[in-house]
């Protein structure tokens, strides 16, 4: 039987580094995808993921299993992502569309099914790019909610806990976000 995240954290408090490795292996993929969907840059998402794990490790001594580990972890990740996005906005760095263009090569090749027919592959990539583009254009507060609920399977009350806001706010942001996404995706077709 697999140990819970909270049990692994308590083990880590006793100095067992293997439990940290288990946590990393368990959460590396969901965390990377969450950061990627938030910042729309794989390399940056990888750095953010590492920073999240570092912060988790550094907070081991003060960790108390009062809330779910995943909630705590996503709160750290969300704050980091929002900080990075805010800094990018302030510095007026490469606009988010530039990422969409620059990332159409390279990393995306890994996602393409080599067994698929050429048309299907192109279509799949096109849809994926549309989704990425639409999600990147969502306001950050809606993007967080949509990503956590739709892709990371977090419940509304957990998202409310992560964002430290009422559930009603989360639900209204989710509805507004999906409505906006729906419009953007239909416009792109």
């Amino acid at each position, binding site marked *: 039987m697999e140990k819970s995240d909270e049990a692994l954290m308590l083990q880590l408090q006793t100095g067992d580094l293997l439990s940290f*490795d288990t946590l990393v292996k368990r959460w590396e993929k969901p965390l990377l995808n969450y950061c990627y969907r938030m910042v729309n840059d794989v390399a940056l998402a990888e750095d953010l993921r590492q920073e999240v794990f570092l912060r988790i490790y550094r907070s081991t001594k003060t960790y108390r299993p009062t809330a779910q580990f995943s909630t705590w972890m996503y709160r750290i990740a969300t704050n980091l992502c929002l900080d990075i996005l805010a800094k990018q906005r302030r510095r007026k760095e490469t606009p988010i569309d530039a990422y969409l263009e620059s990332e159409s090569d390279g990393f995306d090749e890994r996602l393409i099914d080599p067994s698929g027919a050429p048309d299907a592959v192109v279509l799949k990539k096109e849809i994926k790019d549309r989704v990425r583009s639409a999600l990147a254009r969502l306001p950050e507060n809606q993007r967080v909610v949509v990503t956590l609920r739709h892709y990371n399977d977090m419940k509304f009350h957990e998202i409310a806990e992560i964002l430290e806001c009422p559930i009603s706010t989360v639900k209204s942001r989710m509805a507004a976000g*999906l409505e906006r996404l729906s419009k953007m995706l239909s416009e792109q077709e």
Partner: protein
Amino acid sequence: MDCRFFREQIVSESYDQLDADAKKSLKAHLQTCRECEQFQVSLNETQQTLDQWEEVDSPIDIEALHDVIQPKPLSLPPQLPAWRWLAWGVAACLILTLSLSVLAWIGVDVKWADRGLTLRIGQESVPEITEQELVRLLQAERHATQVEIVKQLQGALDEFSKQLQVHLEERQKQADAQLVLIYQGLQSQRVQDLGFIRQELQHLAGATEAEFLETQRAFEFILASHVSEIQKNMK
């Protein structure tokens, strides 16, 4: 309730986070609201499109992460073996001895004095000194000696005063203790004397009373004999 509320309910239902009563209420609304029904359809399509975004996978380098969280200690240069240290020490001593020998041979005098290491080359010439200068130096030395003696005496006197003070304090304490003992002795003697005087007084009172009674009986006898003699004479 307005459509905005129901659209939130539609979203909740799509993620299976709506209770039975709310579902019933939503179902009833959808039967009457064409726009919300369309929203539900488009929402399902949007969610299906969102699912097309496959997840990326880039495993983290655990070793690199370990290096960041627990930096490895800096590697120190290999330590020299003990015999190498010994060889270096012997070599250093030899060089020092050789250097001092060379310095002595060329007439350089190296001394460790109060003011540190001194170097003197060749013989030191003794300067001429006058009688007056000698007297002045002797007087200065004498004065310095006197000052030193005075300082020593002063110190000894201070020490003696301290010891005397301590001795006097001890004597004072002893005298106080003796006075207390004497006072206690006198007090107890006084109590004893008072007890003795009380006993004597009681004894004296008893003897006086007995004597008084005897005298009274003698008077009564004399009186009785005089009365009987007077009565006899009258007869």
